[in-house]
């Protein structure tokens, strides 16, 4: 009740103890989930802080890695919507999504030799990478990103051995 005497922002800061603890706990769970590739840890982190889009990006990437392309799309759609509140978040969203999906690409290559061995995952991966490289290219004006977006679009066809 004490902090109610202040303006809402000050009041929230003075009662931020639980919130910072929750962030710490969720961050630890997510770090564990990322390193161990454990969906349960990631889901628990998301349930603690459902508005944190960075968690959803990681969970989406893990879903793809495990062959769940629908799950990937669901998490990335929510993440993108949450990150669309300001330019900085939009930019960081594209950056993180590219980094994590490139990581998934390496993992799938290690596991299967070539991406076309898992065509559904390959197609979903190339589609999303094309989208995010284009997003980042438009945000930063980086021509290399726009070129990579075109390349991944073309690669989508090759996933099915065409």
């Amino acid at each position, binding site marked *: 009740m004490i*902090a*109610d005497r202040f303006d809402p922002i000050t009041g*929230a*800061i003075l009662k931020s103890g639980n*919130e910072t603890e929750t962030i710490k706990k969720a961050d630890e769970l997510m770090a564990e989930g990322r390193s161990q590739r454990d969906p349960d840890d990631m889901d628990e982190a998301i349930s603690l*802080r459902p508005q*944190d889009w960075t968690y959803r990006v990681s969970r989406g990437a893990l879903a793809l890695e495990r062959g769940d392309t629908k799950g990937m799309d669901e998490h990335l759609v929510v993440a993108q919507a949450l990150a669309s509140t300001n330019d900085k978040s939009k930019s960081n969203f594209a950056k993180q999504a590219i980094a994590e999906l490139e990581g998934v690409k390496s993992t799938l290559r290690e596991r299967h030799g070539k991406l076309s061995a898992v065509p559904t995952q390959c197609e979903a991966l190339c589609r999303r990478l094309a989208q995010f490289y284009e997003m980042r290219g438009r945000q930063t004006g980086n021509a290399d990103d726009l070129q990579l977006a075109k390349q991944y679009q073309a690669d989508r066809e090759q996933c099915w051995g065409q």
Partner: protein
Amino acid sequence: MARRRGCFGCGCWAMIVVLLLLVGVVAAFYYRVPQRLGLRKAQAQQVFSGTPDREAAAAIQEELRKGGLNLQGIALYVLPLEGEEGSVGIAVLDSSRGFDFMRVGERDLVVDRLKKLVTGKTLEEHDVERLAADYRGQDGKSVVILTAPTEDIKRYAEGKISDEELVHAVKGRVDVAALSKEVLKWRYLAGGESAWSFWPWCFSRALAAAPRLTRRNYGTLSGNGSWKTCGR
């Protein structure tokens, strides 16, 4: 004509039920029952539900670390304000995770680095509009949390406003019982001779400055002249 009985023309039981309901509603809001049941988000949860600006927090920590400060036990969060412009930088100084005032660095170094941080570009670039420090004791519970607008702290560091003006901008919350224990501990550790011996005095003054003590041993701080001795 039958004489009407009861309180104010209606049955006493009805009045008692209405009064109990009123007391129940007031108590439910006072004890934050809707928040505890998850029916309504707590104030801090509403304001800080978004994604922390981890890039900004890392930049600030890097700047302090490069400046030679030991940040063990200090967690820094830059939290964007939901529905508002700007962010809040909250430093959690947690004794239960290894934070110790005396290990951060020499007093002059700490003051110099913090001064450089608030007058430099980093906070401005990341749109950090308010700063807060949350000191936690050995049990990990908050002992004192203080906050002030970044602009006021910057103007103070640049010598543009006085101690008293800064103190008026500072708002805080104190667990008086826990703070008393901390003060006693620091007095013992500092032995009155250390460069850090001003901390016990600072917090003693903070205690004295708490103008409104309320239930559960919590007090709120809104500055007065008592804070002048802190760090000076």
